[in-house]
């Protein structure tokens, strides 16, 4: 095997990245300083913590714990509300652009109309891409199903957001649906520029000695390495079905995981819980591991690996 020179750059919905690794929303994306720090640690792009129309304190502790398979969290969408978020996004964008790193702004909302308001609102801060988090539990239709839980509601949110912003938009999907590709397709048809998959997998940890769920919210979202097979399957199904690019994430902890995401069809690769496992420097480390793998196996660039496992 000859060592080859490796190109890790990629482009996602018109946004150029020096490597495919994106900081996942909700992990350290709460301030301009933290977003800047993650950029300096080697991320190709960073996503802010999902912001909604009004300030939310989130759930009381415990809100996140590690377990043998990774992490489970129910932070409860802690955020400062749209108004306070805009200056933070502007500040973050300026600092990140100075490093040549794109900023993705994540939004959520309780209603379709509010998604429109949020999209218009954060557009004022001119992030490089808006990620539309329609997959958080505890907001959504009257049964508690998130908007990503049905083709109809996913399409409705996408249509609304599309109408309210000219910026590229990525729709973020939940894994717990019977057919995630149909929902991704609906988002594409309504004008989404990219799909982000997956959000956490709804789960519950119970402490048998306490006889209680560990999280104060009882139910939370599982993330980290144990959800990787679920994420790869979702990304593969979506990539086979849509033509827009996919930000694949869920359980990516090392360079091989990231490579597998690309092989499943992803254009970029999100990294969240691995920050807990391997520290904020994980971005540069994973990029280096990808480089080593690609050089050793003779892949000159990401395009040469993309989707090869689903062909």
């Amino acid at each position, binding site marked *: 095997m000859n060592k080859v020179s490796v190109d890790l750059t990629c482009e996602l919905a018109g946004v150029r990245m020096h490597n495919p690794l994106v900081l996942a929303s*909700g*992990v*350290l*994306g*709460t*301030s301009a*300083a*933290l977003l*800047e*720090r*993650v950029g300096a640690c080697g991320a190709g792009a960073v996503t802010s*913590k999902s912001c909604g129309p009004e300030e939310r304190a*989130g759930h*009381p*502790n*415990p*809100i*996140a*714990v*590690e*377990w*043998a398979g990774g*992490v*489970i*969290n129910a*932070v409860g969408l*802690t955020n400062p509300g749209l108004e306070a978020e805009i200056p933070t996004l502007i500040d973050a964008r300026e600092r990140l652009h100075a490093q040549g790193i794109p900023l993705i702004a994540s939004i959520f909302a309780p209603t379709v109309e509010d998604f429109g308001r949020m999209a218009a609102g954060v557009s004022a801060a001119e992030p490089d891409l808006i990620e539309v988090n329609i997959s958080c539990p505890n907001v959504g239709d009257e049964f508690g199903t998130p908007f990503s839980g049905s083709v109809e509601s996913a399409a409705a949110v996408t249509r609304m957001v599309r109408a309210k912003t000219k910026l590229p938009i990525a729709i973020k999907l939940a894994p717990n649906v019977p057919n995630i590709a149909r929902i991704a397709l609906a988002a594409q048809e309504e004008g989404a520029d990219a799909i982000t998959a997956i959000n956490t997998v709804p789960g519950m*940890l119970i*402490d*048998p*000695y*306490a*006889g*209680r769920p*560990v999280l*104060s919210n009882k139910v939370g979202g599982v993330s980290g390495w144990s959800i990787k097979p679920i994420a790869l399957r979702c990304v593969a199904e979506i990539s086979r079905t849509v033509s827009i690019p996919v930000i694949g994430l869920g359980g990516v902890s090392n360079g091989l995981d990231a490579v597998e995401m690309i092989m499943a069809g992803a254009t970029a690769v999100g990294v*969240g*819980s691995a*920050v*807990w496992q391997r*520290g*904020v420097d994980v971005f540069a480390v994973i990029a280096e591991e990808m480089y080593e793998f690609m050089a050793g196996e003779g892949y000159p660039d990401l395009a040469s690996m993309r989707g090869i496992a689903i062909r």
Partner: protein
Amino acid sequence: MSDMQAYQRYFISTSQPKNYRTRSLVLDRPLAEAQPGQFVMIWLPDVGEKPFSIANADPLTAAIAAVGPFSEALCALEPGQPLWVRGPLGQGFELKGKKHLLVGGGYGAAPLYFLAKQARARGEEVCVCLGARNQAELLLAEDFREIGCRVEAATEDGSAGQRGLVLEAVRAALVDFPAQTLYACGPKPMLLALAAFCKDNRLAGQFSWEAMMRCGIGLCGSCEIDEPTCDAVGLPHGWLTCKDGPVSFYQPA
């Protein structure tokens, strides 16, 4: 099997009053691999979860000041009752040199006690400066003396030790205790003052910070130290108390 559990259940062995509102909770067994300055998250099901410094690792011990609902619930626990712990978490102190100056404000004495024990076990010299509003607020002074530390107290009302802020006690101690490193834990204004003092006096310092902790594992961002504070004490922006800290390190150039 137990490594599948997020929390370890401990039982209270003894709950000893340390001052009018602070109790030392001694638990039923050790916490493996804990270092002074690290912390644990203590969970009481249906009550909540908060961070507490490790005051001793074997057996696991915490000094709790009853100041609000959660700390009061902890202080109300009786021997034999359970509590749940995850950790040790964070970056602790690191003993440097052979002469150690420890500076505690309030329950900041707790992690310093663990540090002092470690230093004394190595046969090294420890001087502890404790600051408090008054004598009743002083914490662990006797415990430090018992393990052979020199103790200097400073109270705002002069009811114990010298009158004034703990920084005065520090200055006084340094006269005949040429410490190589200063280790501090306490309220933010105290830490800021000590950080400035170390800088001015070209003294190595280790400071244990407090912040609002939620995940405790470096994911949620809630324990970030604000940028002005970072700038004041020379920390990089976006410094996370739970993961990068709680202990920050200052080394004169």
